[in-house]
């Protein structure tokens, strides 16, 4: 059981992260919330402050995590504010338009920078923070889309796939150091990021439900978590379709 008393959330304005933050605050945690959009971040931090008890500290920090040169300074700032860090959740990301990416190298690389490279930068610095402490939790929201490249969104999928693979290696390294590295793979979640999708059907979940699964995985120190769990079965099938068939499908 990991105690989640001082937690950093990167991408705190994402709908899933906000629900995670509320659940952590209701369990007594102090939070350091990093977000890109200042007015959204302020709204969320104010809400969390109202929900928090007098002894809990809630701090907001506005920056664009694509600027990786700032990452070290952010981690130092967190330590000034929270003292120790028990856990981090990396939740920032964008959902690129696949067709636009196909017509633009710049856009493709920018999306990979946001959804993969900036996360890898944070992971590198954070693992060096946690390693000597011999404890801690690093949770990252990857995606089921990272399990197999598909024509409909392989720029996003490749970025998430890089993150998932990086986390596998990091988990392997950190397993001996007492640090839990958790890969979260949500399926379809009803959030503003997916506003343009038709959300009828049983595959869609609410962010509150995904957040419960994330907090649970962080407390228990799980490894790879599909949320909701049935996505493990769906992705098992998708991963095992032979490539000569898969390439003809329109997934």
């Amino acid at each position, binding site marked *: 059981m990991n105690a989640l008393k001082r937690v950093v959330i990167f991408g705190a304005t994402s*709908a899933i992260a906000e629900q995670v933050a509320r659940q952590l605050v209701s369990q007594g945690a102090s939070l350091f919330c990093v977000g890109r959009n200042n*007015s*959204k971040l302020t*709204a*969320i931090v*104010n*809400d969390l402050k*109202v*929900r928090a008890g007098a002894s809990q500290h809630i701090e907001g920090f506005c920056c664009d995590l694509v600027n990786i040169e700032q990452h070290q300074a952010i981690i130092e700032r967190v330590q000034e504010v929270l003292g120790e860090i028990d856990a981090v959740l990396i939740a920032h990301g964008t959902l690129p338009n696949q067709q636009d990416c196909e017509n633009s190298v710049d856009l493709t690389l920018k999306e990979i920078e946001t959804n993969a490279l900036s996360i890898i930068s944070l992971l590198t610095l954070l693992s060096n923070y946690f390693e000597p402490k011999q404890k801690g939790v690093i949770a990252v929201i990857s995606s089921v889309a990272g399990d197999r490249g598909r024509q409909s969104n392989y720029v996003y999928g490749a970025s998430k796939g890089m993150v998932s693979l990086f986390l596998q290696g990091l988990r392997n390294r950190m397993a001996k150091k007492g640090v839990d590295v958790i890969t979260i793979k949500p399926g379809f979640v*009803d959030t*503003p990021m997916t*506003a343009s999708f038709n*959300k*009828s059907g049983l595959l*869609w979940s609410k962010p509150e439900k995904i957040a419960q699964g994330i907090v649970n995985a962080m407390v228990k120190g799980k490894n790879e978590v599909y949320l909701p769990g049935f996505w493990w079965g769906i992705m098992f099938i998708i991963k095992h379709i032979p490539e000569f068939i898969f390439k003809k499908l329109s997934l």
Partner: protein
Amino acid sequence: MKKPLSWNQLPRVFSEKVHALSYRQEPFSSHLPKPFLPYGNGRSYGDVCLTDEGTLLLTQGLDRFIEFNPVTGVIRCEAGIILADILALIVPQGWFLPVTPGTRLVTIGGAVANDVHGKNHHVMGSFGQHVKAFELWRSDGTVLHCSPTENTNYFKASIGGLGLTGLIRWVELRLMPINNPWMWVQSQRFQNLDEFWPLNTQAEQNFPYTVAWIDCMASGNARGRGILFAGQHAASQSTYPVFKEKTKRIPFSPPFSLINPMSLRAFNALYYRQGVKPQGALSHYVPYFYPLDAIQNWNRIYGRHGFYQYQCVIPARHAKDAASRLLEMIVKRKDGSFLAVLKTFGNKQSVGMLSFARPGMTFALDFPNRGTKTLRLLADLDTIVQEAGGALYPAKDARMPAHLFKSGFPQWETFSQFIDPGFSSNFWKRVSA
């Protein structure tokens, strides 16, 4: 995601688009078809929250607290937060909602827009009287800060304004102090309405919360029998009982209504015979105020055809006579209501131009939808209401005729000057025609 309907599943109308708001200051309007209509948690019973054109603006994502001062008891929060979330925050800190409807699953924006009332109307008035301020977004992009002293007309128009004056983005509310989460509740049977009135007058003098349940399947000598419940927030106790909330859910809509004359008669007879507690007992606030919240999707017991709510208010001078006539008609048609609730409103003046609560008596009923048979009964009840100078509650209406609305809400024309030209609802199109 299912297409939004209201809680009684009637009428089945769908807007062109549905847009989920997630940040109150985020612009959204440019690419969406008008008219707009805010939709909170879908707990009203009818079409005040529905439009068959334009865009429904879902406010559930605007569910953040902005500020809470536990010393003064003033809270400011976004409009889409539900009362249950507010209670979870404030009750442990010794505060309570000054007015609460019979479910805590409504949004605070919806509570303002329908100027809801509770069992304590005779002491506290309706919800709008405790609203300090709110922010109103208009479809031309202007943002109005409304309070009893600023933009007063928009304040009065939007309280009970059915979401037509624009989008309420946040609400500031004055709370009420309590000692603990417990209620002291007394219940007492009465044999008929003649017995009810003096009992009710007495209860109103001694208790801030009163409400009566009427057995509307009982006929003959038993007609008008029921139970009067009176309550107050409990004083500090040396020890408190243990309370654990249990919820159940109705998993699906049966093809037909489970509410029928046979089940109704059995339920009402059993309910009447429940152990009353004239000497009083402690009850946690959750089961006291929100008994139906314990059964998720309770609306499904009425089956796929849905149901109608019917809630009227009758001015005090005609209250006794009209209550008796309404009940007589319901009993005669044998189409009784599952929960028939009678409550007297006090003399507190409501703030809103279209506020429903006014001095007199209110009677709330629900009827499974049996098509024209049900509509005919409701139209006959309308006649009694209109003759007595009463009105129907827009939040619970899916069918009232325009003439009844206009006679029941004489300020409707003044109100209509403050409607946002980019907002409309099916309710409004019907009653203003």
